[in-house]
């Protein structure tokens, strides 16, 4: 399937002037959005509650059809396809795993998606085994998905989509309310998806996660995209952050207050900031270092 898709040459996601109005109550949730995403890009979408992030991503797999404008995914117009037809092209990880899981065992849960899109049985087994391995679900395969803890359930939900190996995956809030271990696995997943050339769209309030894994950040505010740049540029833009009521990762904020005025980098990770501080400390005169030891 991926071959025909790449054959279209064009974009992974091509949204033109898409408007969406929820019929119930005539709520305008998207007002003429344009967005182009290349194959293999990892993008993050941020914005306040109700800014239209979820609505935008639901257009990508056809769960919602644009009220006007067009949404072309891998060269396919979503308006002409059902959600089921889009499933092999776009995986959608729902925010709440409870909305997604229903099978009797974790194993069966993981097999459900690939089987639906017509993956041959032997390959299903291989994909499921691989997903179990990657997400560390070995001890849970025979468990009922509802008997495992919430973070594990979340991983099962993600794994059930990853096992379908769609060329585009959408995550709605993958890391909110998760423990450190789960966040770590999600982080690793993003890196692996990037290596595999999967296009990833990640809606999240988790700025450190985005700072760490995405190459491009889309900022939404009241039904519109108001910024589209690298995480470094977005997080360094204090006015933008204030206007959208968003908060850059703490590391970045500290960097902006300290090393950036001195010509240092807009750090996105602790390692980056630490390295810069260390190099500055190293290049300083010995007196400052000795005074530190005295204290």
């Amino acid at each position: 399937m991926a071959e025909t898709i790449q054959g279209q040459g064009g974009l992974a996601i091509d949204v033109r002037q898409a408007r969406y109005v929820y019929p119930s109550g005539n709520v305008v949730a998207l007002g003429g959005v344009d967005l182009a995403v290349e194959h293999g890009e990892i993008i993050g979408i941020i914005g306040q509650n109700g800014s239209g992030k979820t609505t935008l991503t639901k257009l990508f797999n056809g769960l919602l059809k644009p009220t006007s404008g067009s949404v072309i995914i891998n060269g396919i117009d979503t308006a002409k396809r059902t959600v089921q037809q889009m499933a092999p092209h776009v995986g959608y990880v729902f925010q709440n795993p409870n909305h997604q899981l229903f099978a009797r065992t974790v194993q069966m849960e993981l097999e459900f998606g690939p089987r639906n899109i017509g993956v041959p049985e032997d390959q299903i087994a291989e994909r499921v085994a691989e997903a179990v391995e990657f997400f560390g679900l070995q001890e849970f395969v025979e468990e009922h998905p509802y008997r495992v803890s919430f973070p594990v359930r979340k991983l099962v939900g993600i794994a059930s989509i990853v096992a379908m190996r769609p060329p585009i995956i959408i995550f709605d809030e993958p890391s909110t309310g998760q423990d450190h271990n789960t966040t770590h696995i999600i982080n690793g997943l993003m890196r692996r998806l990037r290596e595999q050339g999967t296009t990833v769209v990640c809606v999240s309030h988790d700025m450190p996660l985005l700072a760490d894994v995405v190459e491009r950040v889309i900022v939404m505010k009241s039904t519109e995209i108001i910024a589209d740049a690298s995480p470094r540029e977005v997080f360094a833009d204090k006015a933008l952050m204030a206007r959208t009521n968003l908060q850059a990762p703490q590391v970045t904020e500290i960097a902006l207050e300290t090393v950036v005025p001195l010509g240092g980098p807009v750090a996105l990770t602790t390692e980056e900031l630490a390295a810069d501080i260390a190099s500055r400390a190293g290049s300083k005169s010995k007196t400052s270092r000795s005074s530190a030891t005295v204290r």
Partner: protein
Amino acid sequence: MSMQAALPIAMIPGNSIIHRINPLAKLVWVVGYVVLAFSTQNIIILYSMAAFALLLAPIAGVTRPLLKGALILVPVGSSLLALQIIAPAVERPWTIVDQLGPLSLYGDGVYYGFVLLGRIVASLLLALIMVMTTHPSDLFTSFAKLKVPYTLNFMLAMTLQLIPVFQREVGIIMSAQKSRGMKGSGFSAVLPSFVPVFVGAIERVQQLSISLESRGFGSNGIKTSYRQVKGRPSDWVIGIIGVLVVAYLSTISIMRGTWSLATEITFSPLFVLVTFLVAASLFACVVLAAVLFSFKK
């Protein structure tokens, strides 16, 4: 799509005279309507009741939602009338008034068909108006005044509140399954969704009961309500008028053996034919639309 399924019948906020009538007085009228509708076969009474309900709609400012909610009557009413004309629910002998290909149309069932329809229309319209003009909590506060046990009352209120929540939940769950390429339609497609819906429901109820207990639910004492419901003299008058009218008319009806006017009112063959054609084609349209819709899905 089912995602944004809002309740078709919900309270329409407002401050009309009808909104301000005490919920119990309104309830008396609704119950009275049902009692009267099913104790009489007098179509003049039945359709006057329906007309009265319709008159209340603009006063309450709910005409549009009322008509929308009453759309359900189209398939019910049209199938009912059409059936009564080809297969009357009255004793034979039937008189054929027209022949439509293989179908014989009988005049005898028409009157009874209109009675059945009138009963449904009258009761439904008034019930809808009541629901659309009454805040659910006001109704439950009023029940409390009637000494309905608090726990029972609370259970009723919670159940009603959970319905739209579940509706939304089912929508989300269905879209999650579709996103994973679930094929099929009809019951087999809905089945996988039941698990998450029920698990979600049970979890929700468990959490609710814990949170209620931790806030002292079930402790003794008089429960007060945030919303105050007044029982003004006018409410009493309205309620009593309702009871009297219903009691009077249903007593007469029953004394006259349902007060049917079937022998007094006769329908011309042309009227029967037109009624049948209109009813049958309306019903056919509804069926066709339903079939087309399910195919499109």
